[in-house]
């Protein structure tokens, strides 16, 4: 993803949202000294939570990452999450975010706002949501094996090391995002963090490093600072470079070690594979 595309993507994300969106709330808390700080809110009013109001708040604040139907996109499927974690825990996550992940904090949503969102999420009948994933997970599991995926991805301890681990991918991403990756793996790569305080970075971005003797290494960035970069090559080997030692270092937006399955799998097979991936929730 080049700069222009990325800017456009961010812009589109804004257009997609109606009014106040996630980053906006993060930054409000952080406005003066630029760090999201955990502020306490006023005591919750004793008003019953309103799932209808929660739906509107969800659309404004959460749908960019979790999908308009809460079924997940870049962020995980949230339907039924309150039943798993408890309402209070979800309110807390909304208010405070999850440090070290892309989940930002929403300090200017009131306790009541957060409770309304939780009521909306709790309103989903978990059984009824199974239908949104169209394919057959069992067939998808067989496709996963026969399509060569285990060569690069680990699931429950088994598999290759080049690509990201998929053990909990069904809890991390939604079906739309997974399908898009299968079609064009290097496009619209996810970004880590909220980018509010420290910079956020594109994950799995590929680079080509050429050393002074002409030796070239192409790989996925696994670490970078101003003086060093570490790349994971196609065999999973990690190469560390002292930047001043390199003849050149170029990012390769749009590129991925993963092949596209666009012309390899039928639409039905793609749905099956997505269904399988969505079934991978790891240990709860």
């Amino acid at each position, binding site marked *: 993803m080049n*700069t222009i595309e*990325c*800017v456009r993507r*961010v*812009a589109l994300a*804004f*257009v997609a*949202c*109606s*009014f*106040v*969106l996630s*980053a*906006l*709330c*993060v*930054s*409000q*808390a*952080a*406005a*003066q*000294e*630029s*760090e999201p*700080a*955990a*502020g*306490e*809110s*006023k005591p919750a009013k004793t008003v019953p939570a309103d799932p209808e109001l929660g739906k509107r708040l969800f659309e404004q604040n959460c749908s960019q990452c979790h999908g308009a139907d809460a079924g997940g996109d870049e962020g995980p499927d949230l339907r039924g999450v309150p039943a798993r974690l408890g309402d209070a825990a979800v309110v807390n996550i909304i208010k405070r975010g999850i440090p070290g992940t892309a989940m930002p904090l929403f*300090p*200017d949503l*009131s306790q009541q706002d957060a409770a309304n969102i939780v009521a909306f999420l709790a309103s989903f009948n978990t059984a009824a949501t199974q239908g949104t994933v169209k394919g057959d997970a069992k067939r998808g599991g067989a496709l996963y094996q026969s399509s060569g995926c285990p060569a690069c991805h680990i699931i429950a301890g088994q598999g290759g090391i080049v690509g990201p681990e998929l053990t909990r991918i069904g809890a991390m991403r939604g079906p739309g995002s997974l399908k898009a990756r299968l079609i064009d793996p290097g496009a619209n790569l996810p*970004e880590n963090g909220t*980018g*509010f305080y*420290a*910079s*956020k*970075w*594109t994950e799995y*971005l590929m680079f080509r490093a050429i050393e002074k003797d002409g030796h070239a290494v192409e790989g996925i960035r696994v670490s*970078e*600072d*101003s*003086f*060093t970069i570490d790349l994971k090559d196609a065999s999973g080997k990690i190469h560390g470079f002292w930047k001043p030692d390199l003849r050149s270092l170029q*990012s390769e937006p749009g590129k991925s070690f993963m092949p596209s399955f666009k012309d390899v799998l039928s639409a039905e097979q793609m749905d099956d594979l997505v269904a399988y991936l969505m079934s991978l929730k790891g240990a709860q």
Partner: protein
Amino acid sequence: MKFRLLGVVAAAALSFAPARSLAQDVTYEQLLHADDTPQDWLMYGGDYQSQRFSRLAQINRENVHSLRAAWIYQPKQAGEAPIESSAVVVGGLMYVTEPPSTVTALDARFGTKIWSWTPRLPSKLYTIGVHRSNRGVAVYENTVYTGTLDCHLVALDATTGAVRWDVHVAENGEGYAMTAAPRVLDGKVIVGMAGGDVGVRGFLDAYDAKTGKHLWRSFTIPAPGEPGSETWGKDMTGTGGGATWGTGSYDPELNLLYWGTGNPAPDYNGHDRPGDNLYTDSLLAVDADTGKMKWYFQFTPHDTHDWDAIQVPVLFNATVDGKPRKLVAVANRNGFYYVLDRVTGRFVTGVPFVKQTWAKGLDPNGRPIMLPNTEPTPKGQLVYPDGHGGTNLNSPSYSPQTKLFYVSARESGAYTLEGRPRVNFPDFGGGGRLNLSGDQSYGAIRALDAVTGTMKWEYRFLAPAEVSTLATAGGLVFSSTNEGNFFALDAVTGKLLWEFSVGGTDTEANPITYQINGKQYLLVASGNAFVAFALP
């Protein structure tokens, strides 16, 4: 036994000339001429001019490559916020602060702890828009002064850490907090406050250094009927913002304090505050005896991008158009570098030092000429620089040797969004922003001609950083990245001479330098550790 021990101490003292005991009193004379005692780092900014220039030259261009770690001090309670403390060193004792509001005295030679003081903070602490950290202390005579997150100004005995007095400056429950280092003058402690994003009324306060008695308060938001109140549309004294959350500079001859003010509130929605919103985003020149404002200069009238003007003002003298002038320089969050006459507040120069897309330029009085379509919108408007600004709180430096101003430049933009205007604490943003990613941005240390703002060189690094610079007579500029790299540049050419990864993802503290027993040290804090360096 006692006599023999004393004898050993005396012998040890003799062998380490000059013999000094730790924890010496600091006189106002010393503070006035801080650059005459470069072995100490006497205050935030190094001296009253906040030049952050040290005359120490033992570590220089030729030998800096062999710098190595001398000691590391890790605070016991590594907090949720990084260390942001600018240390003060007096006679071999170092005073640092640890998140959230702890003060610790270290033996500056070994990094060993002498004493530590931690306030009892309330369990319900409001820190919206405020780092849960602290930027440092002020030291005067035998007392260490610190501000706490719950907005107390506390005087501690420099030798023991015992509380001498404790003043409740403002209500944390209303959004007030303190994170900045106080500024101490002759018998007076000056302190600012934070909390502008939740719409408190900004002020600068003065207290008697001996007793803690309140001397004066200078508000940054005018009351109804006062000059400047007409720039708000209505009474905003309860909600206007204009926090004084940095540490200002001081000109002893003019007896003027120079202190920056923060953004108006709500940050991103200006509809309810038509007008320039004085005295937000301004540099104030305040009489140190009375608190009366002598002049002001507003950098960003009617700000809707959160461009606080609390960057540390650097005082220096130079010849402009053949005339010697007393000047003050500010590299502002809005992306412009300004030079003002510090006697009159008159605009001298102003040029962008990073990419900016909101102003066509500055008019002859230094007022920005706004471009259309730069205001926040509900869908987001991309504007450079981003909300952290072209540079932020982290101090720049000025070298009288090179006449250059060294500043961290942040090359990044942000989508700024207009939201509902909020008027009830603690909801007060009125919108927000989303910064571009690290892959779309970069950071640099830039050397500007201090008078004209012309860039002489830059040293680029990975991400836009909130970092400080330190210039030394060794011909060096020290700085850091937000990825934890601490490095030395040639002050004349910008060439990289040395680098060390101190780790930690927030190298936000101001580095300092000092000397003990003839050995020069450098100190930087990053993440949860203080790291000192010296030559082998």
